[in-house]
Each structure stands twice: as C-alpha cells, then as structure tokens.
C-alpha cells in the first residue's frame, strides 16, 4: 500500500466519520464539529489531487477557499447556536421544534 492510497483511505475515513457524527450526535455543536471534519477530509483529498499535477496549485487554492468558507460557516453556525440556545435553552435541534409546538 503506497502512501497515497493510505492518505486517500484516511480522507475517506475522516469523511465517513464526519458524516457519522453529523447523523448521530444530537447536539448542534457536535454537528458543527462533524461538518468541519468532513470539510477537512475533502481538503486532504484536494491536496492529494494537487500532487498529480504539482506545477500548478489549483488543488491547494481550492482547499484554501474551502477553509475560508468553513471559517465563515463555523462563525455563523456558532452564532446561530448561541442564539437558539438563548431562545430555547438547549442546543439540541430536535428539541427546537418540539418547543415550537408549545408556543
């Protein structure tokens, strides 16, 4: 198994793990963490793809912008979670809608 294959496998593993976290964890912050993990897995892939054509930096740039967007997403996500927490006194999204019914 070459290093490349190993790293691809790592990317796949990270992505699946992120997906698992997003799907299973009830807390919104955990979901956010899972999303970050998935984004990172894709970054790893992008960099690996870039190695196929090392004279340009397309993959790296792509990864860079992914990081950029991820940062924005994290910031806004946390803001929303805080807001929601303030409103519902919980950070578990399933309970948001349940509370809504009562209003």
């Amino acid at each position, binding site marked *: 198994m070459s290093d490349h294959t190993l790293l691809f496998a790592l990317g796949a593993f990270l992505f699946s793990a992120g997906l698992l976290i997003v799907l*299973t964890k009830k807390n919104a912050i955990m979901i956010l963490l899972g999303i970050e993990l998935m984004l990172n897995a894709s970054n790893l892939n992008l960099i690996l793809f870039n190695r196929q054509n090392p004279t340009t930096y397309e993959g790296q740039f792509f990864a860079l912008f992914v990081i950029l967007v991820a940062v924005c997403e994290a910031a806004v996500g946390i803001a929303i979670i805080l807001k929601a927490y303030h*409103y519902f006194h919980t950070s578990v999204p399933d309970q948001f809608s349940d509370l809504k019914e009562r209003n």
Partner: protein
Amino acid sequence: MTETIHSAASLWLALSVLTIPLFSALVCFVISEKFAWLSPMVSSLLLFITFICSAFLFFQVGDSHALTYSWPWFSVNENIIRASLLLDKHGLIMVMVVSLVSFLVHLYSIGYMAEDQALIRYFGMLGFFTFAMLGLVMSSNLLILFCFWELVGFSSYRLIGHWYEKQEAAKASTKAFLINRVGDLGFLIGLMILWSWLGNLDITYLNLETIPTFWLTTAGVCIFIGVIGKSAQFPLFHWLPDAMEGPTPVSALIHAATMVAAGVFLLIRIESLFTENTLVIISVTGTITAITGAIGALFQYDIKKILAYSTISQLGFMVMAIGAGAAQGGFLHLLHHAFFKAGLFLGAGAIIHAMHQAYHHQEGNVDVQDIRNLGDLRKKIPITFITFMICSAALAGLPFTSGFVSKELILTQMNEWSGNAFSWKWLVILGAWVVTLLTPVYTFRMVWFIFFAKSKHNVEMVEVPIVMRLSMFVISMSSLALLITFKPFHILTIINVLMSLYPNTSHLITLLSTLILLIALVSAFFMYKNYELKDQNKFLTPNLYLDWLSDYAFKLVLQFAILVHWFDRKVIDKIINGLTYLQVGIAHVTGWSDRYLVDGVVNGMAYSAKGIGSVTRSLANGKIQSYLLWAMAGLLIFILWILY
C-alpha cells in the same frame, strides 16, 4: 316531377311522424305543474296525429321501393356519418304498429294513470319513448340505430322506475338498464368490427364483400348479443319479468309490443349480415328462450309475470324463426304479437285497475295481481273478458286469429328449411312444436284462473273507464284474423302489403298444429279443472337461476371493486407516496438549511412549521437528522446506481 313531390311529401310525413312524439314529450316537460292534467289529453291527441301521419306515410310509400333520405350528422376521418331515414315495407309497417299501439296506450293511460302524481313525467317519457322507437325503426345508419336503441333503453329505465319510491321498482329499473347495457356492449363491438372493415355503417350501403367471413360472423354474433339483451333472449332475459314493476300500460307498450320487439326487427333489418354460423347461434338461442319462457309462464302466479314469460317465449319463437330461415313468418308474428300481447297487458291492467278500485274500500292488503286471488271475473267485467279472450286466443294460436296465421307460416317455412335428412335442425323444429304445445296450456291456465275458477274473494266490481275499454277493444279487434285475411278488403293497400307476406301454408302443418292445439287445450282443461293453486314452485322459475347468477356476478364485481379500492388506498397510494419520499427528503434538507441559516431561528421556525403542515410531520416525524439520514441513504443509492 311527380316523383319528387311524392318523395318530398313522404319526407315531411316521415319527419312529422318522428318529431310529433318528441314534441309531445317536450310539451309535457315544459308544462307547469298547475296544468299537469292537460298533458294526457295533449299527448294522446299528438300521438293520434302521429298515427294518422304514419298511416298516410304508409299509403304514400306503400308497396313501392324503399325510400331513403339522409343528412350528414358528423364526420370523422373523411367518413361522414349520415343520419338517414330508410322507409321500406318492413319499417313502415313497424312505424304504423308502433304509433298505433303507442296511441292506444296513451289513451288507455288517461284512465289508468288518472290518480298518479307524476303525470307529466309519465306522459313525457311515453312520448320520448315513442320518438326513440320510431327513430329506431326508421333509421338506416347502424350508429344512429344504436343511439335510438340506447334511448329506448333509457326511457324504459325511467318508466320501469316510474314509481321509484318502491324499492323493487328502483331495483328493477337499474337491473333492466344494466342487463340491456351488457347486450349493448356486444352491439357496440359489432359496430366497431363493421367500422374497422367498412368505414361505413349505413345498412343500405354495406359492402359485405370486403370483409372476411370470420369477422362478418363475429360482427353478426356481436350484434345478436345486443338483440339478446334488448329482446330478452337467453341468457339475458331475467330483467323482463322484473320490469313488470312499471305501470301496466308501460309493460304493454315497451315490454310487450315495441321495445323488446326491436331486437327481432333489427335481425330482419340486417339479415344480409348474417352468415350460416350466425344463423345457427340465433336459431338455437331462440329455441332455448322459447322453451324456457314457456315453462316459466306455466308456473307463475302473477298475471303480469305470466305475460312477461309468455313474451319471452314468443320473442324466442320469433328469433328462432328468423334464425331458421322463416324471417317473413317471424316478422309477421312480430306484428301480430305486438297487438295481442299489448291487448293482453291492457286487459291485465284493466283487471288490476278494477280490482284496485274494488278493494279500495276494504280492509287488508290483497295482491290483486295474483291469479290465486282472482277468479270468476267473466261476469263482473264482461268487456274486459271478451277482449282478453280474443287476445288469449291469438296467443294460443286458435284458428281465425292472427296468431294462428303467423304460427302456421313460421312452421311451414321452418319445415322447408330443415330438409328431409335428419340434422340438428330437427331439434330446433322439435323445439318449435314444443312451444306450440306449451303456449295454449299456459294461456288456458291463466284464463281459467282469472275468469272461470271459483273466486276466494267476493267483491263488487265495476268496469274500467271508457277510454280504457275503447283502446282495449281496438287492439283486440286487430288480433282477429278476419280483419286481416278477409279478401274483400283487398283494395286497401295495407292488406295488399300484408297479403304479400302470406305465402301458402302447407295443409299438413295446419292440420297438425290444430291437432296439437286441441290436445293441449283438452289436457289443460282436465288438468286445471279441479286444480288448487298452491304456493309458488320457485324451482321452476327460470328467473331464479339467472337472477342468482347475475346477482352473484354483481356481488363478485362489487367485492372485486372493494378489493381494488383497498388496494388503491393502501398499496398504490403508499407506493407513490414512497416515490415522492426522496423528493420530500431533499425538500427537508433544504428546509433544514433554511431553518438554520437563512430565516433565522426565531421567525423561521414558525413559518416552516406552519408551511410544512401536519402530514409531512407524520410522514417524517419531525427530526431534522432523520431527514438527513434518509437523504444520505438516497444519495448513496444514487451514487451506487450512477457508478455501477
């Protein structure tokens, strides 16, 4: 020049014959409730005019060649369907019979229905029926004929259900229409075959050489299925006894004289269409019907039911005659039967009416149609008795009545048809003889128990109103062979034409049939002289089996329908919902991001919860992550599908 005037005049006459009954129906429907009492008079008068017109038309056209008139009705694929009138000998005689019987029934109904609440509807539908029946008889395009064919069925449906508040009447009317519809489907399929091969449905222009024999036979059989339905042939006759729930004059007009005879008339009209094989089917069906009907009539107790079975038997006899090459005899019998059977029904109606009047003041509920409750009426209502006797004699085929003449003719022609060598045809002939034997027996039984046997109930009775007596008288007179066969009246065209239908009958057959008649009457006399009528023997009612069969079929269809409905609600709906599930899932993913990112939590929650509604909540239990889960599952499947 004279020819043109001649045909123009007959065109106008034909059109007025056709439209006056329709006009009568319109008048009845338009007239206000306040003047409802006018409608019987007006429509009877209009029908009388119709009869006069048809008589004029008959004399105008007379024995000359057939006239046709046509107008384009609609066109499709460059084939024009033409609404066309065909005025030929058979048709014109039929027109006369229909308008005469219809007029007499109208007249009779003035008395019979005097106390009815829905006179307008009754006379309106009678007028409409007459229009449809005349249209059926005169039209020469099979599609138009089919239209009128269905329309007479419709008016029959309405008239059977005239007293729709009685459940039996309501059921009987539905049954009659549905069973007729079964036959009509056959007719329609026959028309489809003809259309696909010929592109034309006009009887006078059918070019039968272009159509293969197989399809011609199939088309003939299919159209004959229509006749089976309408003319109450085996196995679709069980609607007719039930149809007796309608008012008696209606039974006389529709279910004895005209509508049920329309099938027989159609067979004569499209005789050229029938191949050898079709004729076999026709004659065998006719024989079975004739015998079954006669047996059925032997064991009934309701006057109208006896007459209904007798009608079935007689119609079967005619159909058998046509199938067995005795088309002329069949047609003649059709005409005679129209009169004597209508006369019998009117007589039965008069008995019922008179009994009703008599029991009106008495306690208790007696079924006045049951022959066990009748008896000894000959002195109480003598005029009814006489007319009823004449018509019964014609039905039984006594000499010097019209029934005798046509029966002889049929038997003679069938004898020629069967040939000398033994074949299946002999069975048909045997059937014909059995029917000629059975008919006098059940006729005698009916007459005996109504007019001669000892009555259980002793009531004062009065003769029915004059209008009823008048129409009964006229109609029974026309059943006397003297009027038809009396030579001195030869000068009249009508007799000329009718005479042309009578070829010489064989003396041997006349002798034989008279002998059989005598045997039948004598044996019936001794059989019924001291006979006590007991409870009805249900097993000898052919209706029972067919009713059972058709009820069973209906229940089967209904159960199947319920099953299908269940399937529809539980399976198809669910599957289709499942198919849209993916769509819903995707919608929820967007809804999820919508809730989190776009709308903001506070306002977004309220909106999307409202918008998505209760159903979707139950569909996907409200958990965002489960939507996501299913969406991912869908995505995985999609990827797998795309990749491999």
